[in-house]
């Protein structure tokens, strides 16, 4: 954040360092403007107020992963204040939208990250690669009411940060970390209970599980007649247990004071305007817009909106075809399925990236156009889609090459139907005696004989006529 060394993950220990990162005698920090740009953008995404002047403080404490033994941070004048994260709680079913809430934020500030310690049997090793990389601390108001809300909050926050290009938020790489402050109180009580800080929550699921565990633990303590001590506890996600780390009495005196090595930074309106222009539409705003503008159901929007690239893909295809719902169906279902399958074949955990897909928005629009105009049937279209995904050819070219054009030739259709009736005398007899369902067997036989090319509506009419 205050040096020009590259940031990275998985590099050999202590290779992403320089005199500033290692806090060598004489080294001085210089603000990396991009770090400030990103935290301001994050603040704008979350609707925070941005401070007109950004100041820096030193947070003093000794720890072997902290090369200067102070962290450059922001104490009483954070760059962002207020704002909120809109969350969606679990719905009654997977395909039904859950309730929405806005979780108010207290502040966002920027500070430098510390290094990483590895403890051996007889020694401990320090890796300073991560030291000095920018870290944004986001603090919520005490407004989350349980493990599920915390889970939904982190999910929504992560989506907002990823979509805003702020961070990849990969918890495994330490790009998103969470400490949870948890307290319980009797129903109806307005005053918050004594809080316990839970650390080492290494995944969003661990956050949910850890909070649920801590609520149970505190409830057991209080119902057992005990009281909660203000402390910091370490959560073990594998074991589902927690242990006390330090009590309030052992809390640090960080001796904050303004960092004399750094000048305050004025954030003027032109700077804010330039960043504001890069802020993407918020996920739930987009979801509401898709419902209003395109009449897309929740089952489709809930697939599209978490993925910005998919949204762009959809909007382009929708504009090309003018049939947003049909287009969205193909993208949310078939394209997603094929991408996942291709990912499984390539043994890629996250599936194949949309950017690598041979199917582009024009392909989808073309395919939808063929179905809408009756050139091919929906079932043939499924086949065409798989071929498009594999080859990158346009739908019309595939239809022509494979001769998949839907047949509307009355003579050909009558021949197929007549053959089907002849080959299925039992079904024909049943239909004639009033069993509507028996017609399906005849139609199925026609489709089989025509390899799906027969127009279903015409087949229906001809079959009724021939057996009438």
């Amino acid at each position, binding site marked *: 954040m205050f040096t020009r060394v590259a940031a990275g993950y998985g590099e050999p220990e202590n290779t992403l360092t320089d005199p500033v990162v290692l806090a060598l005698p004489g080294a001085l920090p210089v603000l990396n403007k991009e770090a400030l740009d990103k935290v301001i953008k994050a603040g704008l995404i979350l609707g925070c107020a941005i401070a007109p002047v950004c100041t820096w403080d030193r947070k003093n404490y000794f720890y072997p992963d902290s090369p200067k033994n102070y962290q450059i941070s922001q104490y009483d004048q954070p760059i962002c204040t207020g704002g909120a994260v809109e969350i969606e709680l679990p719905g009654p079913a997977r395909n039904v939208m859950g309730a929405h809430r806005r979780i108010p934020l207290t502040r966002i500030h920027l500070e430098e990250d510390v290094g990483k310690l590895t403890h051996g049997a007889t020694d401990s090793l320090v890796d300073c690669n991560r030291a000095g990389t920018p870290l944004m601390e986001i603090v919520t108001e005490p407004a989350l009411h349980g493990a599920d809300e915390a889970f939904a909050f982190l999910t929504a926050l992560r989506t907002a940060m990823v979509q805003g290009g702020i961070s990849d938020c990969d918890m495994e790489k330490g790009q998103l970390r969470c400490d949870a402050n948890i307290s319980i109180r009797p129903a109806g009580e307005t005053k918050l209970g004594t809080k316990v800080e839970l650390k080492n929550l290494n995944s969003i699921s661990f956050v949910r599980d850890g909070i649920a565990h801590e609520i149970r633990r505190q409830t057991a303590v209080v119902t057992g007649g005990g009281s909660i001590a203000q402390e910091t506890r370490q959560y073990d996600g594998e074991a589902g247990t927690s242990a006390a780390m330090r009590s309030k009495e052992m809390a640090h005196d960080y001796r904050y004071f303004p960092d004399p*090595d750094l000048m305050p930074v004025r954030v003027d309106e032109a700077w804010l305007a330039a960043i504001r222009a890069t802020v993407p539409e918020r996920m739930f705003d987009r979801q509401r817009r898709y419902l209003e503008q395109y009449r897309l159901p929740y089952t489709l929007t809930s697939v599209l909106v978490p993925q910005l690239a998919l949204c762009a893909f959809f909007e382009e295809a929708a504009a090309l075809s003018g049939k947003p719902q049909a287009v969205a169906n193909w993208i949310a279902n078939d394209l997603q399925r094929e991408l996942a399958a291709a990912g499984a074949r390539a043994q890629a955990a996250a599936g194949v990236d949309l950017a690598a897909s041979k199917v582009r928005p024009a392909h989808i629009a073309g395919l939808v156009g063929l179905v809408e105009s009756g050139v091919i049937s929906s079932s043939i279209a499924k086949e065409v889609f798989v071929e498009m995904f594999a080859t990158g050819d346009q739908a019309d070219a595939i239809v022509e090459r494979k001769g998949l054009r839907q047949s509307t030739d009355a003579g050909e259709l009558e021949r197929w139907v007549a053959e089907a009736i002849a080959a299925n005398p039992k079904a024909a007899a049943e239909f004639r005696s009033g069993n509507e369902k028996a017609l399906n067997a005849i139609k199925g036989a026609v489709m089989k004989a025509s390899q799906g090319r027969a127009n279903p509506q015409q087949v229906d009419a001809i079959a009724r006529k021939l057996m009438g």
Partner: protein
Amino acid sequence: MADDLIFQPAARLAAQLAAGKISAVELLQACLARTRAVDGRVKAFNSFDEAGALALARQSDERRAAGQARGPLDGLPVGLKDVIAVEGQPLTCSSKMLANFVSPYDATVTAKLKAAGAIPFGRLNMDEFAMGSSTENSAFGPTANPWDLTRVPGGSSGGSAAAVAAGELPLTLGSDTGGSIRQPAALCGIVGLKPTYGLVSRYGLAAFASSLDQIGPLAHTVEDAALLLGAIAGHDPRDSTSFKAGVPDYRAALAARKGPWRLGVPREFFGAGLDLEVGAAVRQAVEFYRQQGCEIREVSLPLAAEYAVAAYYLIATAEASSNLARYDGIRYGHRSAAAKDAIDIYTKSRAEGFGPEVKRRIILGTHVLSSGYYDAYYLRAQKVRTLIRNEFAAVLRDCDALLSPTSPVPAFRLGEKSADPLAMYLTDIYTISVNLAGLPGISIPCGFTGAGLPVGLQLIGRPFDEAGLLALARAYESAHDWHTKHPIL
């Protein structure tokens, strides 16, 4: 030949190099010979790299032979206080904590010197981490004053001042947080300049108090100081507190700027505690300027006089307590052999590695930043600092510069003030407020006491008006011969 080069001003040596009368190697060898002859008694050097310096001197001579000399500093050896980083050289800060530390990078001033063809030579002694006023706080033993080897050279840049005064080097760099260039320059009878805060990059200067530290030149003459300042000044993107401004040709400005000047004499800087002989010499210097047609005004700096030392020892120690936290024995520096765990590494390494004055200031600084004391100490000291800055600004609206003694006393005896930290702190009483206000200050020789000890005149200028300040100092120097007198060693 070699003896002729000792005590020569750098500007004259530069002219001789340019004229081909001497070579950089000859000059360096003269300095080496002088150092070998006298430094056993003066002890200005912590160490020096003879082979490395000779290699640079040869390169300089080759450049010059090829017609590619880089300017007036090309081939001149410049000594560095052992708090300024030079790649591949020790950076001890005269502390046991860094006794074995070698810097892997160049300070910005070092890089600028190298770019100008100068030869960074020698690691010069100092008070440990620049904390002190006598160079007695060095973990490697004190430096002696070349004028009287039983006396201190001042501090904390005592080695930088003594090396010039003893004729070991023509130019050195020191650092000044509360007077650490000007006070030793005064006590050693040479010129020392503390630039405006922000004029010279602090990158590569091991920090004592970040908001006060500045690197500056020590030299025989004002012209030499101008020469060296011109090479090290200027904006540095590696130092956020470095000022974005062009660097004038300070040497050219010496002749271009002429008086008469309007000069302020702060009443409070001539009060109790001022040595009579020092006071007399400084008043004579004031009289000189009056006779030159300058308007002399008595001015008043009551806040600076009353509160500067107190505010300084709160702000500087607070910053130091944080700046020196990095010396923890984890990544580099002294690590106690007795350490058994992380806390041990901190406590034992720091207990063993730091000297008593450094510990005193870390403890004081830690205390003033502590929860519950911050407002009463640190915050109030910062408010006082603002008032002192405003007080100087008001006085300098009507005055081009201020004149005062640099130090209230001439060089004192080794050990004389060691047992009394407060008495030691008060030797910086006239210099400290200049750092608090961020102003440029220069000390030039203005006479001797009856015992033959040098006296320094301090000139304080407007922010970033080093050119004017140097011209004013040069006007005095050119009419006096104090700078031509040298100690006999």
